[in-house]
């Protein structure tokens, strides 16, 4: 008799859905995945929702409401192994810009009827609320890395996912460094994972995967200035999808962000 397949649940918090869609985007692997794991709760893919507990939960999005702060506790209770996916879930996402402003000002500026909006003053990563077993970075995540995480989970091994700079991936694919040719790039302080997409198209890295393992953002910012970046440019470039990640937040602040 076939052994029972582990049960998968996919959860959404404050996010754009891009990361969970990466899972649906795994066209070649999707049928195999459905054979290896029981997709028990994935509203984006199927209206059939089976009750918990779940063996593996993938959590997308950040915590921005009191309701979600409670809901994530329920998700943790129902999940044996919980993986957060994407910049929102691992660092608070672009919506964490509210952490550095007055959220009521934002609400007043954006919504016609602010009174209907009930939200927290901050956007925080899942790990600020519950214990997380593994964090997969990226905005959005790389689908090959997602398959790697799930395959590793199924085999009971550690995922082969590096925390070093984008530069190492950039050199592995034979791309020519854009920074040395005069284009400011965040690659040296950014976590690998995308495969150095932007530099291989002659653009500087935007930092989608957040800080690498030992980011020396101050030294990089210094070199950016030599290349002509203003303090405002630097404050802004560190204030995007991973704005609330500590190393990026600090560097942005140091330049008036």
């Amino acid at each position: 008799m076939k052994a029972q397949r582990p049960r998968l649940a996919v959860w959404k918090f404050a996010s754009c859905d891009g990361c969970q869609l990466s899972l649906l985007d795994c066209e070649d692997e999707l049928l195999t995945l459905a054979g290896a794991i029981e997709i028990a709760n994935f509203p984006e893919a199927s209206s059939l929702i089976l009750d918990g507990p779940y063996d593996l939960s993938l959590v997308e999005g950040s915590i921005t409401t009191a309701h979600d702060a409670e809901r994530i506790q329920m998700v943790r209770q129902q999940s044996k192994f919980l993986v957060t996916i994407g910049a929102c879930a691992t660092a608070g996402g672009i919506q964490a810009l509210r952490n550095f402003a007055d959220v009521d000002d934002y609400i007043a500026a954006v919504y016609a009827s602010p009174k209907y909006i009930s939200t927290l003053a901050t956007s925080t990563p899942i790990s600020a609320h519950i214990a997380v077993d593994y964090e997969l970075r990226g905005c959005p995540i790389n689908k090959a890395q997602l398959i790697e995480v799930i395959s590793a989970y199924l085999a009971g091994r550690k995922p082969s996912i590096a925390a070093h700079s984008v530069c190492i991936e950039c050199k592995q694919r034979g791309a020519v460094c854009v920074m040395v040719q005069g284009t400011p790039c965040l690659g040296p302080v950014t976590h690998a994972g995308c495969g150095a997409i932007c530099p291989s198209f002659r653009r500087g890295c935007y930092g989608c995967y957040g800080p690498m393992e030992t980011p020396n953002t101050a030294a990089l910012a210094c070199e950016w200035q030599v290349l002509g970046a203003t303090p405002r440019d630097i404050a802004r470039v560190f204030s995007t999808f991973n704005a609330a990640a500590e190393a990026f937040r600090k560097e942005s602040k140091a330049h008036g962000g």
Partner: protein
Amino acid sequence: MQHRPDGGTKAVISREALQQLIEALSAENCRVLGPTVRDGAIVYDEIAQVGNLPAGWTDRQEAGRYHLERREDDALFGFAVGPQSWKQFLHPPVETLWTARQGDDGISIATDRSETPIFAFIGVRACELHAIAIQDRVFLDGPYRDVTYGMRRQDAFIVAVNCGNAAATCFCASMGTGPKVDAGFDLALTELIDATRHEFVVEVGSEAGGDLLDRLPHRPAANADLLAAEAVIARTQSAMGRRLETDGLKELLQANLNHPRWDEVAARCLACGNCTSVCPTCFCTTVEDHSDLMGSSAERIRKWDSCFTLDFSYLHGGSVRTTASSRYRQWMTHKLASWIDQFGTSGCVGCGRCITWCPVGIDITAEAAAIRATPQSRKGEPHGGT
């Protein structure tokens, strides 16, 4: 013609004969690789014809800076070295070592080596020949031969070039590795270009090189040709942009493991690993094991690693080199000092790539000079890993 592999035979060939050389190597099923312009740099890639070479281009290099400029002539090799080295072919950045499959009759393990190409490298510089020789020692000498490196290396045909230009970041002269090629090539070219001619003096370095030269239109080199070739090398030698004082360097560095300079350089160092990727002698790798979703197949992949990552020194319980100063020190003292203990030569050939391609322009020659200027020499003091 009798060829002495010690570089006895010298001839002169034209630009057209160079085209025939490329064709002859292609006809022998070689993968012909050489310098070509891509993405604003001179990289190494497939060469089908002389027209693919970077005619009329030169490189301007400084610490952390690189750009191409037009030359006043159409020299084919009128530049120094670019962001890549031959390492990417002989010791590729990503390599599948084996794949395993779970079948009906158990597990089978396969190593697919059917695709190993025969390389022909056009335009290998003196420093690069030394770098290849260093990697040969690492991978092929001693009891643990690297099989796939050996397969890629054994039949590689090498057309070297004596440098006609030194970059501001070059210091092969102080490392004793250039600019004149001395060994390890099949043919070596020296480009002679002026208003009246565009030719190449060819030196034969092996029997295979001699055989190939015989099939190309050539004339014996006259004394004037040889003098012109010597002048090219002498001019390059005197135009070296940088210098590294190697006298007593090993002892100096090994006696200064707690020098404050390591912390100063660490304040600038991004620990990005670019220096190790571009270095033609850095050879470290990591292996990754991947299994598939069904648990029915697995593969082991080898990738370039860098001593600047935390994982590189991860022992039980954590990384033993957590600070950038310990990692920069590890890299530089290995390259310039303990490499000599380990392999009998310096690990640096003076190509200057780590200087040019460091995003913040950290300069190995300047770092060594700074320690030489203020030695602390507190011998015997233990240095911690971190």
